[in-house]
């Protein structure tokens, strides 16, 4: 009986795996259909987008359940796209635990945000365009998730980048939105160039871009052994170098430290976009990419040790986590705080991948997707209720006006802070901290991450105090959002709490699911040495952060013009944090200044050097033209004139024959006949 069920599951799994491509393709087709619609077909557009994504969600759910029933199932498909010489470029898709869990997360969160958008964008005149872009994004993101080929992944990756650009600049009439869109596009492009170099290098070494190809894929042992034996200089193996290049691409997309500047600016887009793309899914694509090619990152690690690539990932992730959390402390735009928080949490995920492996990083990715989407949608609800106000200093007291938003937002906030036991963020963050504690290279990342957790609790408390406690400081009166917006909030809030249950030390279902094992429940999971102490420490850190935040901001409701509580006590610390630690300014005086200088050089070259050459060529041609003109005027024209004169004269002569007098003609006729007769007579003489 058990065997039969297993066989049936395997067969269905194979079928689903073969047709998995429908999951991204259906929303993409919907996007195309919406693009062709008229602007006023709002309802049809929304229905089509939500319907297609519902299909993707159900299909993903079936796939997920099948994978869950067959631990370690991996169905990979590929077919040849084109052949050049002896090398073929293959595309394909894959169904394994990692892609299944991402599929469900992306399509489910996406679906909730689609529904929420119907309410949030209800008054926007470009409603249909919005859903067209959203559907395209959903399709491309699902495409990234199921790709079995780095090339297909890269293509979907770029479409995702494109839709991100389009949606950040959705209100392109605002100059700041247009600038933010450009910034996001250009910044992520920097990472993508490295990513592409990595792909090309990988292809040149292994001859394939498929991840899994029945033993012949690029991240399967044969190819990895080959990559490890190649040297790339600087003491790196080709495997490490390629891994670092791919990580650079992931860092661009996921806002890791040097390339994080675009993400806070991306908040210029509509709030559902911030929630879906710039918090829950797209920015997580970088983390997913690293998880996807984890065998490449990991290859060559000594027992209990780590590799160059993973070390770099850990350090970058930990630095990002603290850096962004620090900046978030001193921001006053509700969405900007969340954006820096997102950057910080992405740092946690990267560090989790670096120190603990796929399961640790991915678990935080999944829980974060839910509670950060919840927080962003809550922020959207607040902004909506406060008449498009985004400055937290002009809010306050919303606890009474927007009770549903308040409750769900608080749940999201506690999950983000990692409030013990009941919230998913606690379990996923603890897994990262635990792995960091046992990291073999250094302990510093662990302390950085703990400090980051403290900051997270602090800035979230500050934000909630500003927005929901105290008294109302804005204009007009705030109102609760419609049901279509609050229902997704409630659903997300449920998952923000419940998701922690699948990753507790007692029942590490998520880790075992990704590793292809069947999870078993046992309380002994908590008995691991040091774990209890760690959980206690992290709980204390969270409480300390909450308490500090409450001390400084609780129920005080400062006036909009009044300086911040932290600004009063530590102005030397406040100013650099408020100015985002001058990273943008740093780019301004380095990269941007260099480009400006280079543009000036290019301008000078254009004007003086190339312009001179062009002028010279033009002058030569002008001279040649003058010569031609001389020839024309004197010779060719003369000839033509003479011909025309002759023709006109001849015409005149002929015209004079046409006297218009009939009798003249008759006379000529008569003379001609007589002459003809004479000739005939004369010639017929014998």
């Amino acid at each position, binding site marked *: 009986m058990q065997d039969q069920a297993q066989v049936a599951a395997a067969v269905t799994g194979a079928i689903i795996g073969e047709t998995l491509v429908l999951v991204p393709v259906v929303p993409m087709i919907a996007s195309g259909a919406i693009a062709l619609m008229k602007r006023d077909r709002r309802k049809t557009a929304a229905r089509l987008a939500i319907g297609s994504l519902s299909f993707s969600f159900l299909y993903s759910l079936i796939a997920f359940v099948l994978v869950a029933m067959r631990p370690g199932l991996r169905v990979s498909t590929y077919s040849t796209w084109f052949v050049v010489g002896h090398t073929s470029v293959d595309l394909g898709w894959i169904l394994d635990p990692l892609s299944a869990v991402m599929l469900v997360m992306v399509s489910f969160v996406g679906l909730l945000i689609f529904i929420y958008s119907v309410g949030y964008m209800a008054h926007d005149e470009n409603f249909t365009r919005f859903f067209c872009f959203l559907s395209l994004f959903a399709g491309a993101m699902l495409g990234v998730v199921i790709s079995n080929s780095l090339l297909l992944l890269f293509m979907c990756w770029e479409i995702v980048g494109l839709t991100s650009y389009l949606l950040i600049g959705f209100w392109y009439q605002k100059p700041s939105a247009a600038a933010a869109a450009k910034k996001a596009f250009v910044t992520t492009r920097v990472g993508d160039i490295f990513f592409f170099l990595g792909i090309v290098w990988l292809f040149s070494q292994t001859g394939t871009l498929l991840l899994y190809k029945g033993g012949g894929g690029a991240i399967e042992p044969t190819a990895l052994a080959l990559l490890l034996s190649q040297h790339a200089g600087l003491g790196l193996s080709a495997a490490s170098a390629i891994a670092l290049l791919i990580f650079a691409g992931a860092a661009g997309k996921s806002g890791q430290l040097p390339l994080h500047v675009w993400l806070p600016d991306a908040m210029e887009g509509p709030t559902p976009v911030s929630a879906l793309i710039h918090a829950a899914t797209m920015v997580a694509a970088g983390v997913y990419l690293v998880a996807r090619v984890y065998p490449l990152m990991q290859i060559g690690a000594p027992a209990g040790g780590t590799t160059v690539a993973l070390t770099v990932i850990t350090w970058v992730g930990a630095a990002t986590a603290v850096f962004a959390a620090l900046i978030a402390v001193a921001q006053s735009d509700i969405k900007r705080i969340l954006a820096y928080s997102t950057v910080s949490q992405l740092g946690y995920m990267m560090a989790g991948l670096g120190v603990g492996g796929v399961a640790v990083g991915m678990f935080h990715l999944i829980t974060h997707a839910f509670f950060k989407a919840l927080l962003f949608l809550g922020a959207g609800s607040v902004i909506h209720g406060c008449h498009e106000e985004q400055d937290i200093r002009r809010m306050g007291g919303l606890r009474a006006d927007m009770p549903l938003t308040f409750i769900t937002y608080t749940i999201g906030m506690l999950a983000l802070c990692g409030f013990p036991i009941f919230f998913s963020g606690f379990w996923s963050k603890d897994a990262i901290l635990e792995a960091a504690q046992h990291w073999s290279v250094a302990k510093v990342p662990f302390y950085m991450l703990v400090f980051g957790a403290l900051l997270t609790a602090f800035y979230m408390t500050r934000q909630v105090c500003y927005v929901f406690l105290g008294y109302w400081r804005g204009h007009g009166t705030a109102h609760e959002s419609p049901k279509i917006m609050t229902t997704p909030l409630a659903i997300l809030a449920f998952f923000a709490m419940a998701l922690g249950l699948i990753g507790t030390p007692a029942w590490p279902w998520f880790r075992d699911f990704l590793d292809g094992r069947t999870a078993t429940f046992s309380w002994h999971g908590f008995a691991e040495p040091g774990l209890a102490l760690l959980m206690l420490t992290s709980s204390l850190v969270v409480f300390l952060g909450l308490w500090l935040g409450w001390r400084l901001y609780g129920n005080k409701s400062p006036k909009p013009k009044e300086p911040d509580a932290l600004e009063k006590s530590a102005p030397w610390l406040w100013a650099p944090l408020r100015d985002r630690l001058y990273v943008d300014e740093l780019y301004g005086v380095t990269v941007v200044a260099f480009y400006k200088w280079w543009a000036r050089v290019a301008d000078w070259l254009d004007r003086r050097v190339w312009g001179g050459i062009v002028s010279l060529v033009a002058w030569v041609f002008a001279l040649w033209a003058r010569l031609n003109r001389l020839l024309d005027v004197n010779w060719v024209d003369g000839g033509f004139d003479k011909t025309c004169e002759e023709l006109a004269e001849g015409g005149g002569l*002929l*015209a*004079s*024959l*046409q*006297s*218009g*007098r*009939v*009798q003249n003609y*008759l*006379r000529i006729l*008569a003379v001609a006949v007589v002459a003809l007769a004479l000739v005939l007579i004369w010639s017929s003489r014998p």
Partner: protein
Amino acid sequence: MTTPLAGYLLVAALVFAIGLGGALTRRNAIIVLIGIELMLNAANLNLIAFWRYGPHPEALTGMMFAIFSIAVAAAEAAVGLGLVIAIYRQTNTTELDKIDRMKG
């Protein structure tokens, strides 16, 4: 005694000459038309004479030819007079010297 062929030819040549002279010298378009008619009839006379004195007087070919020619001449006269009337309506004259609008 029968008249010789040359007699018919002589008369026909005279009529033709008179017609030609009229057509060439008179100014009135109608008189010119009459001259043309005379020339046509001279030709008819020749046709009949040559037929009568030819090798096959029993074949009726010459008479047929002449009748055909007369029919054509009648049609031509009708068209010609019609043209003259149309021209007269336009220019108020039938003097051919004054009708030279087709001058090149």
